[in-house]
């Protein structure tokens, strides 16, 4: 209890950092995880060495449903690791006690540095499994130092550690054996040699003996239990984990470090954690929008969208869906900044991995959403998030048995009660679906030609092309049709759809965005009667017509819209409008 103030401060700081800045990440990790209380799930985890870490990690990840609770658990485990390090490495009472926090800080950095790679996780429980792995190492080391070090049993213990614990904690068993060997006072060389031979024997046995670990490629065996597979193309993300594993060995040699230098090292590492944490606001925004979409909190999606000056394509897609849900798609989609900001990550993956499932679901493309959810989850890992969208897709298609199956699997996870209750009720009473606030707008969009095939193209194009039929079906589809043609700057189809709807539903409300597009395209068509017709249709949009005159005059003064400063001048004078989009924006931005 000598260090309780430092311990408390450390745990508090960890929790604050995770809670305040990484709550969206924690929630995402919980949604992209799965825990099923069944023998099959346990066996599936244990099919790979280190499966126990994955299993326990998946169990604990459930608590991240409430990010503060997940943060508290992580902070507690990080503290436990520091405490055990202090005990196992015999740092208590020495001037170098501050070094005991280094492994924990490195693992904290690993979590806070996570980026879009979290969409490509293959293992469950990543947040917790690495901490649990090092905790296990420290427990094994402490046990060894207490009971076996310097005794006859020392060498057998070192040899047996990888054999017994490799199936449970994977490569962490090798770390533990090596630590025991290195910290031996007697026969250090023999100990290290024995540990290396034991580790190699375990690896060879698991690699080549029939019937042993036949569901894992042998190149992953050495890294079993470590998140190697998850970051195969983004190995930089693993540097903190690697450093955390190396730290105990470094501490062994720095045990006599005086107080001030050891505190300086601690401060330096803490500063590194702050400096190297992933502060990407777009990443945070994408995760926030993802959560808000899942909860159908469309105002929250738009709130986040408003704060993003240079959004990614994922943010633009989420924003457009939220605008559609609020009935403001053509009204406002061009008033936001467009986005083609790249994902800041070392991993390579398409946009569809980030947001295809929700985007396609809310656009009524339930099979496309299902397909991409299944393909992503079969390549990486199955998770609550995809099952939720697959359940909703099944409800949209009227496949209630299938929906119940997905809901059933979600219900196995803790804290999903209210979600399960709501969607199970809908599966049991499908007649409520057409009038349900969430499903009504989605079902309306399914009335577009249902035989349509998907094409291999960017996600946004896939969505907009779906609504590129000119025929009027209903108001919801009309909204996407107009958004599509306006985005493509397609005057003839915008005007066709506008007039067709006016003929079928005379006097219907025309949104500001459509009014702007109509007046622009009518005036640039050179067709006086069309200008006259549009002017009549837009009799309720006198302010828009006036603004168009000023815009038109201003544009006439500009020789080259691409000249420096012109874009900014138009923004400051008349804000964002469809006219601004049509003149200054490349279509690729949407």
């Amino acid at each position: 209890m000598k260090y309780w103030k430092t311990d408390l401060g450390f745990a508090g700081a960890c929790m604050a950092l995770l809670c305040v800045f990484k709550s969206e990440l924690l929630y995402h990790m919980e949604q992209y995880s799965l825990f099923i209380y069944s023998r099959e799930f346990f066996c599936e985890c244990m099919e790979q060495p280190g499966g126990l870490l994955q299993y326990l990690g998946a169990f604990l990840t459930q608590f991240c449903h409430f990010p503060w609770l997940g943060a508290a658990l992580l902070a507690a485990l990080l503290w436990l690791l520091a405490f055990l390090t202090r005990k196992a490495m015999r740092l208590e009472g020495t001037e170098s006690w501050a070094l005991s926090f280094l492994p924990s800080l490195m693992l904290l950095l690993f979590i806070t540095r996570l980026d879009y790679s979290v969409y490509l996780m293959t293992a469950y429980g990543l947040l917790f499994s690495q901490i649990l792995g090092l905790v296990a190492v420290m427990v094994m080391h402490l046990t060894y130092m207490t009971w076996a070090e310097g005794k006859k049993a020392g060498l057998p213990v070192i040899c047996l550690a990888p054999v017994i614990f490799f199936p449970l904690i994977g490569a962490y068993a090798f770390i533990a054996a090596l630590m025991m060997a290195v910290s031996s006072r007697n026969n250090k060389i023999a100990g290290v040699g024995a540990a290396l031979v034991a580790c190699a024997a375990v690896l060879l046995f698991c690699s080549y003996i029939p019937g042993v670990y036949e569901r894992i490629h042998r190149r992953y065996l050495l890294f079993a239990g470590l998140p190697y597979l998850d970051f195969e193309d983004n190995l930089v993300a693993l540097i903190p984990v690697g450093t955390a594993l190396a730290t105990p060995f470094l501490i062994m040699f720095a045990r006599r470090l005086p107080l001030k230098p050891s505190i300086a090292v601690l401060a330096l590492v803490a500063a590194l954690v702050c400096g190297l944490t992933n502060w990407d606001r777009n990443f945070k925004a994408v995760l926030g929008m993802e959560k808000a979409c899942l909860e159908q909190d469309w105002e929250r999606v738009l709130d986040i969208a408003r704060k993003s000056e240079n959004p990614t394509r994922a943010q633009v897609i989420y924003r457009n869906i939220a605008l559609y849900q609020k009935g403001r798609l053509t009204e406002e989609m061009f008033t936001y900044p467009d986005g083609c900001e790249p994902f800041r990550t070392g991993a390579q993956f398409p946009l569809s991995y980030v947001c295809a499932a929700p985007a396609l679901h809310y656009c009524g493309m339930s099979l496309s959403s299902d397909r991409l959810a299944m393909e992503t989850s079969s390549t990486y890992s199955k998770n609550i998030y995809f099952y939720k969208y697959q359940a909703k897709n099944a409800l949209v298609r009227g496949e209630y048995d299938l929906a119940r199956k997905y809901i059933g699997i979600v219900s196995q996870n803790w804290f999903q009660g209210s979600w399960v209750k709501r969607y199970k009720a809908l599966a049991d009473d499908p007649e409520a679906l057409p009038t349900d606030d969430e499903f009504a707008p989605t079902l309306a969009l399914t009335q577009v030609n249902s035989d349509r095939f998907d094409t291999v193209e960017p996600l946004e194009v896939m969505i907009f092309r779906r609504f590129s039929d000119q025929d009027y079906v209903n108001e919801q589809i009309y909204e996407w049709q107009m958004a599509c043609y306006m985005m493509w700057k397609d005057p003839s189809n915008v005007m066709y759809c506008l007039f067709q709807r006016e003929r079928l539903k005379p006097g219907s409300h025309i949104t500001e965005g459509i009014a702007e597009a109509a007046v622009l395209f009518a005036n640039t068509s050179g067709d006086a009667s069309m200008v006259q017709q549009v002017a009549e249709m837009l009799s309720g949009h006198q302010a828009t017509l006036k603004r168009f005159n000023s815009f038109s005059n201003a544009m006439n003064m500009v020789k080259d819209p691409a000249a420096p400063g012109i874009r900014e001048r138009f923004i400051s004078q008349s804000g964002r409008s469809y006219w601004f989009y049509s003149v200054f924006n490349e279509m690729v931005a949407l």
Partner: protein
Amino acid sequence: MIAGMMISCTGNAYKNAERTSSTAHIYPDYAETVVPVNIAPLNFDILDSSQSSVVEVSGKSGKLVLKGPRVRIPIRKWKRILQENAGGDIHVKIFLKENGKWTACEPFTIGVAEEEIDGYLTYRLIEPGYSSYGFLTLRQRDIRSFEERDLYNNNLIKGRMEGQCINCHSFQNYRTDNFQFHARHNEGGTMVFTGKEGKRLDFKTGDLLSGAVYPSWHPQQNLIAYSVNTTLQLFYSHGIQKTEVYDGSSDLVLYDVESNDVSYIVHDSLSMETFPYWSADGKTLYYAAAYLPDFGADASSDTKLMTDSIRYNIWSIGFDPSTRRFGTPELIFDAVSDSLSAVTPRPSPDGRYLLSGVGDHGSFHIWNESSDIYLTDLQSGETRPLDEINSERADSFKSWSSNSRWIAFTSRREDGNYSRIYIAYFGKDGKAGKPFLLPQKDPQQNKRFFRSYNVPEFTVEKIKWTPKQIEKVVLSEPVHTRQVDPR
């Protein structure tokens, strides 16, 4: 003798239960099915809510009493009951206790056929994700117990992102000495195993359309009939029909396992031939064939029209095993005349019947909601939908047991998405019994397992190869085939 073995904690109060006419709801539904004498225990769950429940399973002699809604039957006792009642029925009584009062539900029977079922089923497990192969497995299940083991999986050789598509396993005459499967993409090829030898084939040779696709190993000779196909896939964005898999062209070829020679069986530019399957005597090859419609200008503009218009008939062609010469094709089932499409012919080993998969169009019926199994009597030439086993959902791949008395087939009837294996008795009178779901140790596995069972194939023995042994074959240098003229 068995009676009371499991009853010690239950008491006998249920014996005074009031009889009701209502039937208990159980999952899976095994009521009034006919099962083989050597099948694994038909574990089931009682879905009706109750304070407690008791199940009595009884036969000619002895009774098995089990308590609780999760009915898990001990395998040895189950085997004994089946043996004692072979050729007869076993009776299942379910007692439910609600509000302190016991009621006896309407009992049901399970017929026990004397004819055994082949001990092993080999199938592929696949996430229905269409084009990703995160974890594809060929697995063999001992259906007399719950033992299941991997034949091969695509995580063993490569990393997850470099996975292979494993498919189309085929055995020679229900034995496992000679078998084959394909692994596509990384280290891909056709893996052919003969006894203790295995080789990886690079099949594409000469002017063949593709590598080997749908296989059938000749029952006596080391010959494999394959189709070669240019397969295309389309995905619907909405609706019930999920995907459309179709061929742009296809032919049939014969592969000689010993010489690695490949020759055409049927090669017609105006038609597509696929899904070859040998008769048990090895003297007839059944297959599906469709004429390529002339779409004219519509071909490129309306894919749906194109895919919907392709329909297959079932044909056969004679084969002389001594000369290895093929005869003239003969129409067996004219499905196209009824605007249907018949594929995947499977003649029964006794040579009397033929099963085919029939849908409203196309060749790849696993996602076609209209897909049903049809039965052709090869003596009378009559064909009928095998309604005893068909469902509203896609019923597709099927396999005869070696004694022609059992049919295993895949169906999406559970939920429309994840196919499961069903088994049905097939009587000498040409009628099938009510199909039952492949028994699992925990029936809820069917609800929790999010992969589809694909291509169930019976064998009478266990596969001797292990995944790590097969791995060596997959990683070996490929053997190239050689195209030769047909005899």
